């Protein structure tokens, strides 16, 4: 359909053109005409009116101005008009006009063939809460076929009806509220059930009051459930990060009997590797910016693994058999690493961005969003743990590692190159922590001291899980991570930590070897 401005005809065109009238009263009259016509084709023009995008041409017709493309469009068909009758005058939209136009817009949108538009309109309309909104919503609900939109519409109807003067309408609304239990109703329900100074509630009808109370408790219990779900998600991702740290610790501790206090700094180095890769991609490969994270994974692993091997070769090797000194020496190394990073990157946190494909999340229930980044971290740690298990159980290196862990002297006698195994395992453990750093960079801040806050928890995981036991580390990390986050909302972060610590000390009383005790001889 080729349209010239002269092709305007019919009541719809007239009313739309009337929106560009010069007087406020005339515009309001024409909004009323559009409401009576009830034709969804007027939606673009009405929304343009509300957003100050409607223009009046010199020919007296209305036009829509597109802010992005700077095109002028036909108000009904949306066709771009090459040579509009300039100069175009902006239609001055007052708040009075908006007040009239917005419900009409919602009314038209409720009749739109597009389900998403209907949904948005229902939500918009329920906010206004006017008397005609109730009628409009009821009418739309009776016509609506789409299940998703029906749900939203019935919620919207309920929200409007809660304030209705009819007792039956309020009861029907409360029934819906109780079923959906959405927190959007919380404040309204609290208002209804609140007791005034004379002891009587705002809601005077006892039956409605009882229904409101039960709806309120439904909303609250759903809120608790959502909070619980949220804690569970956070607990799982904390457990994943702990597991990254603890996997490496458990192997090196089990194999070498040394505590690596610089292990947390491996996490930090991994995160800074990610930051460096991100910066390099930004500067040299801006086209592939979205994929920097994939490149960061091997880089972080190799960088931290390399640092680990160097540490083992230069310092830790000379301290075998003196675990307490190793603890102190590695603490010194962690100070050196932190200060070095601080001098290179500054003491401030640096920002590592989520690539687009990890941004956002999926809504699993109203008010509970599962972020993609957290899902990815959990998935990643499962992959890494499986990889470590594979290396330990199905490769030659793993066989040697297990042999050295069980009996170093015997393994050496049988020709296992124990020194090489030590260095490789130390590198592997550090590299895994580095991968944890990549994961952590997607969840939180990246700063020189980030590793310190994880190391103590990670040690607790190792202590709890039993030294050198993968399954123990996994179970303990899961348990500690989730328990930590579940206690936190009730008792606060600090008390949560203390409770966990006390639990561990008591637990060690019962099972000094940890959850999954190592079979065989344990050296005294």
């Amino acid at each position, binding site marked *: 359909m080729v349209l010239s401005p002269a092709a305007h005809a019919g009541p719809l065109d007239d009313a739309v053109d009337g929106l560009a009238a010069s007087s406020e009263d005339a515009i309001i009259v024409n909004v009323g005409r559009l409401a009576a016509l009830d034709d969804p084709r007027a939606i673009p023009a009405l929304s343009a009116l509300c957003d100050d995008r409607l223009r009046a041409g010199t020919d007296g017709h209305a036009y829509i101005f597109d802010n992005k493309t700077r095109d002028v469009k036909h108000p009904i068909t949306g066709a771009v008009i090459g040579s509009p009758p300039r100069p175009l005058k902006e239609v001055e939209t007052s708040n009075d006009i908006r007040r009239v136009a917005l419900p009409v817009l919602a009314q038209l949108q409720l009749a739109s063939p597009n389900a998403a538009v209907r949904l948005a309109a229902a939500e918009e309309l329920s906010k206004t809460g006017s008397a005609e909104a109730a009628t409009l919503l009821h009418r739309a609900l009776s016509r609506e076929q789409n299940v998703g939109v029906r749900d939203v519409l019935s919620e919207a109807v309920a929200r409007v009806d809660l304030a209705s003067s009819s007792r039956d309408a309020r009861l029907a609304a409360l029934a819906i509220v109780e079923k959906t239990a959405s927190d959007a109703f919380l404040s309204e329900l609290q208002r209804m059930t609140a007791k005034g100074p004379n002891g009587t509630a705002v809601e005077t009808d006892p039956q409605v009051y009882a229904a409101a109370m039960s709806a309120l408790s439904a909303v609250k219990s759903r809120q608790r459930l959502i909070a619980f779900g949220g804690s569970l998600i956070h607990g799982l991702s904390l457990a994943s990060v702990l597991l990254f740290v603890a996997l490496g610790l458990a192997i090196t501790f089990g194999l070498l009997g040394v505590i690596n206090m610089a292990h947390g700094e491996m996490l930090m180095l991994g995160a800074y590797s990610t930051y460096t890769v991100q910066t390099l991609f930004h500067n040299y490969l801006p086209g592939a910016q979205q994929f920097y994270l994939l490149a960061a994974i091997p880089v972080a692993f190799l960088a931290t693994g390399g640092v680990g091997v160097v540490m083992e070769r230069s*310092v830790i090797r000379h301290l075998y058999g003196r675990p307490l000194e*190793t603890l102190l020496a590695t603490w010194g190394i962690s100070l050196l690493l932190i200060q070095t990073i601080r001098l290179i990157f500054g003491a401030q946190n640096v920002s590592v961005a989520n690539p687009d494909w990890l941004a956002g999340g999926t809504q699993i229930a109203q008010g509970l969003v599962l972020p993609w980044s957290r899902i990815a971290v959990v998935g990643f740690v499962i992959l890494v743990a499986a990889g470590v298990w594979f290396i330990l159980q199905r490769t030659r290196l793993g066989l040697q590692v297990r042999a050295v862990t069980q009996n170093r002297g015997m393994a050496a006698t049988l020709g296992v190159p124990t020194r090489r195994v030590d260095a490789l395992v130390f590198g592997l453990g550090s590299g895994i922590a580095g991968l944890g750093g990549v994961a952590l960079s997607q969840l939180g801040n990246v700063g020189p001291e980030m590793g310190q806050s994880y190391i103590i928890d990670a040690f607790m995981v190792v202590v709890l899980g039993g030294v050198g036991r993968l399954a123990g580390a996994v179970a303990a990390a899961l348990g500690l991570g989730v328990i930590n986050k579940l206690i936190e909302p009730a008792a606060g972060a600090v008390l949560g930590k203390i409770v966990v610590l006390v639990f561990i000390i008591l637990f060690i009383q019962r099972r000094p070897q940890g959850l999954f005790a190592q079979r065989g001889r344990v050296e*005294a």
Partner: protein
Amino acid sequence: MLTRLREMHSPLAWGLIAGAALLIAALPAIGLPEYLVPQFGKFLCFGIAALAMDLVWGYAGILSLGHGLFFALGGYSMGMYLMRSIAGEGVYRSALPDFMVFLDWKTLPWYWSGFQSFGFAAVMSLVVPGVLAFVFGWFAFRSRIRGVYFSIVTQALTYAATLLFFQNATGFGGNNGLTDFKRILGAPLHDPTTRRTLYLVSAIALLGTYFVCRFVVTSRLGRVLTAVRDAELKTRFCGYESTHYKVFVWTLSAMLCGLAGALYVPQVGIINPSEMQPSNSIEMAIWVAVGGRGTLLGAVLGAWLVVGGKSWLTAAIPSAWLYALGALFVIVTLFLPRGLVGLGAKLRPAVDMVIARLRRPAKAT
């Protein structure tokens, strides 16, 4: 009594110690600048803490990463007395400490009662760390938690306590801690005489701590502890219940550390949770490692060297301090397993040889 003293040291050593003690005590009188008196008093307190650390680590093989906590607990006990002694003179003119007024608290928490008395606070500065150490140690040693496990668990304990004290709701002033003290036992804290007295008290306390530690390590109990350190299982099989010995020395050490903290706080004028951060406890370990584990004098010297170096370096080249500290940890553990005292002992034959060679020409003539 006299034989016991002779067991502890040779007469020559006693003489040297007495001389050193006199010199230290006389320092303010013979020209130590006034502003340095609290600074040196602080060093004396760190010396006490180092002795406490060496007692458990050097002689019983228990590496504690929680002594900073005991130190801070002693400090907080004294700080609570100092806070209460200025009741009514704070910014808000309230009987409560200022931070409680700020938090809108109406009454003192129960655990603040009694601290208006200096004697009570002084006793508590020993009892609180002692009780905590006893309970913790009893549970830990009973279940044979030792070596790095024990170190890690003490560190976790310290970490949890730090978090707890950082909270305003705990009732110890949150991250600002306790400060703005005015006087101790009626004497103004900024008065030079008070400062010198505190310095002198610290010096006496250091000397006393040294005696106690020396007494313990030269006693039969000390020899059992050394045996536990070197071969715990064998000692147990010989019929010594190692747990009891460990709990005893662990608790004693914690109380000595609390004493150090109690003397430290009036001299520096503040106590806050950063004093109990895990890193502080680990620094105490490096004092002892630098000086030489298992030598009491070495521990004190190590503490003074490291803390003195820190004071100097953080002022001169601030960014270099962490490097220096980190390198110190690595170098000492790698190359100086017995610390400076051990190095001295190792160099002794060489020094003797040099002296002998210098003497030979003299003999020839």
